[in-house]
């Protein structure tokens, strides 16, 4: 809106400027109506020029500032402006110089000495002609005056008409020195009043004895109309006799004769033509400087207006030309910083518009390409993230090396299994990682061996036993772990470029298989050993019974002692075999609902636990103190009460022995706890947990993984079968057992019981607590 208003104002200004200039040029003409307003027009044009100039100055200074600030496109605009200005101004300047030169020369050429003298001569000729006529008239007047001399006033009146007629004079008049009319005669009968001489002539007569001059007929009429000329001659008349004695002069009685004769029309006309020409010429000659100034000022003003208008137009046009280019340039800059918005397309169907359109098409394509790249990158990132999270959550350890055996990739599983922090060692060989040296050696060795045997299998698989340093967390101390590792060369783009090793901690698997193996051994041993035991025992008893009476006393005693030893040892052997049998072939469990708390209370009572005494026997420092915290409202669990009783027995005995065994442990105590474990989600099963913990020395790290294996024991007198049997029973009941060391010393055994569905809600039976 304002833009249109501005354009309208500009248009009006341009039109009015042109009109002003036209008026100025017109007003230089002499007869113009606007001649009077020339000054005003000049001023207005000057103001216009000043306004244009200031406009130009403002535009130019703005352009200069832009150039100084290195604003994009300013130089191009300046160059355009310069060229346009040159195109506009140079021809104008040329025409101006030519015009001024031409004008001043032609004005000067109007005036030269020859014309000047010719006109002067013409004027003199006219003057001479008039002078001749005047002299002749003067002579005639003097002739008449002689005739009138000494005549009285009456005689003069009579004589004058005759004398005028004979002398062929148009008008004759006699007047007194005071200006009083005495006699008058004229050829023009319509003229009733004589043409009295003006007062200045009368004044002149006082000092001179006569007057003669050519005069214009109608001096009051201005302008170039034809003016007739007449000659006026005044001569004195000698005084008459009665007036003798008075001095001459303009006294009341002096008499003057005035004769007026019209100059012949041809002479008068030509003379006044010459005179008017002379006058015009003189006027022009006087004003030649003025003329030059007039035309010069007009031309200069026109030039200034034209120059400034050209400048303004040049600035405006170059801006207009450059603007779409600037828009394109800013568009490219925007694209370079990632702004792919399309430029506004100019409506014009010219090359610039086409350029803008193709630019927009290009940015669109770029934008699409970038978006596609972005999408792909995001997908890639997501899949990478997915892979990484899979790797991270994998319990197996994964290590990836480059060709120089520098670590490039690892996962959390590897760190967990190896108990090392690999995060700061990426890109370095595994050997430099503290605690990972054996593993690194083994891996290298495995790859070297695999290469050496030139196996056709693409991977190798080996089982390592490596010793790990003590981890800082006490709870999972391990010294030797068994790893199953599998390594292969990494193929990237069809060529070998690194190594991948995947390994798993199979210590528990090995332990489990060992347990199975032990079970088998135990079963066979029990079978094989138990069979000969009964005959051995029976034979020994039979020996003692048959021979005891027949032998001498001392020999009989020895026999009795020996057979007793055999019987005892066989019994002990039997018991051991029974134990083995129990381990290997536990009788089939008779499942029934058990109240775990009641069972615990029953067993605990055997160990001297008093349900009423929560504080424990404080006075007895040597006895092991039992604490029980049994949760109320536990659901019944399913199992064989006898077997579970044995499990609890075993656990409590172990805990008591462990805590009592610790030297310097003044307050040995065993804590028993039951707890209801709520399901993780609403549909999950409810579980019950039993925890038995002591404050003994805990398990040795190397043992922790193998405590459930037979013959693994920390007790000097243990068979090593207690925990193995516990494990077996637990597994047969579908429960889970976990053994760990407590952070503040001692061991902890947790058993997680499953609660049958129909008992889960029936928490009627309360704990004995």
């Amino acid at each position, binding site marked *: 809106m304002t833009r249109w208003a501005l354009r309208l104002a500009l248009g009006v200004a341009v039109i009015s400027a042109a009109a002003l200039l036209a008026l100025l040029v017109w007003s*230089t003409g002499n007869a113009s109506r606007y001649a009077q307003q020339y000054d005003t027009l000049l001023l207005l044009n000057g103001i216009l020029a000043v306004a244009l100039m200031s406009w130009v100055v*403002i535009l130019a200074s703005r352009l200069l500032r832009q150039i100084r600030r290195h604003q994009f496109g300013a130089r191009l605009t300046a160059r355009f402006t310069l060229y346009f200005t040159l195109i506009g101004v140079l021809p104008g300047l040329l025409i101006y110089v030519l015009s001024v030169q031409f004008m001043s020369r032609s004005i000067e050429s109007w005036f030269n000495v020859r014309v000047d003298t010719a006109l002067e001569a013409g004027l003199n000729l006219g003057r001479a002609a008039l002078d001749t006529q005047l002299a002749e008239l003067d002579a005639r007047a003097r002739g008449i005056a002689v005739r009138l001399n000494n005549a009285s006033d009456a005689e003069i009146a009579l004589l004058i008409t005759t004398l005028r007629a004979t002398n062929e004079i148009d008008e004759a008049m006699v007047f007194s020195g005071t200006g009083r009319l005495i006699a008058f005669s004229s050829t023009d009968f319509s003229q009733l009043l004589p043409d009295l001489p*003006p007062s200045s002539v009368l004044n002149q007569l006082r000092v001179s004895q006569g007057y003669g001059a050519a005069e214009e007929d109608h001096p*009051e009429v201005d302008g170039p109309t034809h003016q007739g000329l007449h000659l006026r001659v005044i001569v004195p008349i000698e005084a008459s006799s009665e007036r003798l004695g008075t001095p001459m002069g303009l006294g009341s009685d002096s008499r003057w004769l005035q004769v007026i004769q019209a100059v012949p029309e041809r002479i008068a006309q030509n003379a006044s033509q010459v005179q008017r020409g002379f006058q015009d010429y003189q*006027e022009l000659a*006087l*004003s030649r400087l*003025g003329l030059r*100034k007039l035309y010069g000022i007009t031309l200069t003003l026109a030039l200034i207006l034209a120059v400034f208008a050209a400048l303004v137009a040049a600035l405006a046009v170059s801006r207009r030309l450059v603007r779409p280019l600037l828009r394109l340039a800013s568009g490219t800059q925007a694209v370079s910083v990632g702004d792919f918005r399309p430029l506004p397309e100019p409506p014009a169907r010219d090359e610039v518009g086409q350029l803008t359109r193709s630019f927009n098409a290009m940015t669109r394509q770029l934008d699409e390409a970038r978006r596609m790249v972005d999408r792909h990158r995001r997908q890639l990132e997501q899949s990478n993230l997915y892979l990484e999270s899979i790797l991270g959550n994998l319990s197996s350890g994964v290590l990836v090396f480059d060709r120089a055996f520098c670590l490039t990739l690892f996962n959390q599983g590897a760190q967990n299994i190896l108990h090392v922090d690999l995060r700061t060692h990426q890109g370095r060989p595994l050997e430099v990682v503290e605690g990972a040296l054996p593993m690194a050696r083994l891996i290298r060795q495995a790859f070297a061996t695999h290469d050496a045997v030139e196996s056709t299998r693409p991977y190798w698989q080996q089982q390592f036993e490596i010793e790990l340093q003590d981890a800082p967390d006490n709870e999972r101390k391990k010294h030797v772990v068994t790893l199953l590792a599998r390594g292969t060369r990494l193929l990237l783009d069809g060529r070998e470029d690194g190594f991948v090793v995947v390994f798993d901690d199979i210590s528990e698997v090995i332990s489990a298989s060992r347990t199975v193996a032990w079970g088998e051994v135990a079963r066979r041993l029990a079978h094989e050993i138990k069979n000969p035991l009964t005959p051995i025992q029976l034979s020994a008893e039979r020996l003692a019974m048959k021979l005891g009476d027949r032998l001498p006393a001392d020999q009989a005693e020895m026999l009795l002692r020996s057979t007793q030893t055999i019987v005892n040892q066989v019994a002990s052997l039997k018991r051991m075999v029974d134990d083995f049998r129990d381990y290997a072939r536990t009788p089939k469990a008779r499942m029934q609902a058990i109240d775990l708390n009641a069972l615990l209370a029953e067993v605990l009572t055997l160990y001297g636990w008093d349900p009423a005494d929560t504080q424990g026997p404080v006075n007895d420092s040597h006895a092991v103190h039992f604490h029980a915290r049994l949760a109320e409202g536990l659901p019944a669990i399913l199992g064989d009460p006898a077997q579970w009783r044995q499990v609890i027995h075993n656990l409590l005995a172990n805990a008591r022995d462990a805590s009592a065994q610790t030297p310097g442990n003044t307050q040995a105590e065993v804590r028993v706890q039951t707890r209801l474990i709520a399901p993780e989600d609403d549909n999950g099963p409810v579980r019950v947990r039993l925890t038995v913990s002591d404050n003994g020395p805990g398990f040795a790290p190397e043992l922790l993984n193998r405590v459930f294996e037979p013959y693994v024991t920390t007790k000097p007198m243990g068979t090593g079968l207690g925990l193995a049997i516990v494990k077996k029973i637990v597994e047969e009941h579908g429960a889970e057992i976990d053994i760990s060391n407590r952070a503040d010393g001692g061991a902890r055994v947790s058993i997680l019981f499953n609660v049958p569905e129909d008992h889960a809600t029936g928490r009627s039976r309360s704990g004995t607590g």
Partner: protein
Amino acid sequence: MSRRLLYVLIVLVALLQTGLALANGGEVTHVSLQQTGGQWMLDADIDIHLGDELDEAAHKGVPLYFTVDLQIERPRWWWFDETVVDEQRTWRIQYNPLTRQWRTGTGDLSLPTPNLDEALDQLRHIRHWAIGPTERFAADQTWRGRLRLRLDTARLARPLQVDGLNSTAWALTTPWKYFEFSTSADTHPE
């Protein structure tokens, strides 16, 4: 922009004013008014002399027009002053090179004068210029007036006007002569 333009205009106008004020060729020496025959009559004496350039132009037959501007105002404290009289009187002085005669006149009336000096005498001593009937000037009042004589360049030939615009010789203007006069009750006919 507009402010800058305004400054330029102000400077231009100021230059023009000073130019006119400087270009004077004489001054009004005396102005007096008196009441005669029911009219206020103005007498003025003006000291004026033409420069060489004007003199030469006059002798070559270029008609010269002289205008006397007279303005009389009544001061009004509550509004702009009231202009009572605003009159011009123009004299024309021309030399006829053919008849070698000078003529001086106002309006249609033109009288021959023997030379330029006597022609100018009519301007130098203005007598009995009736400026208005006594009724126009109320009694017991003070009137302020001003008077000047100038060469009327507007009546010159076109090219000479340009000369008149920028040549001091042709810009003959006396400064304004300010005068005051009072009307009293007794002089005013009832």
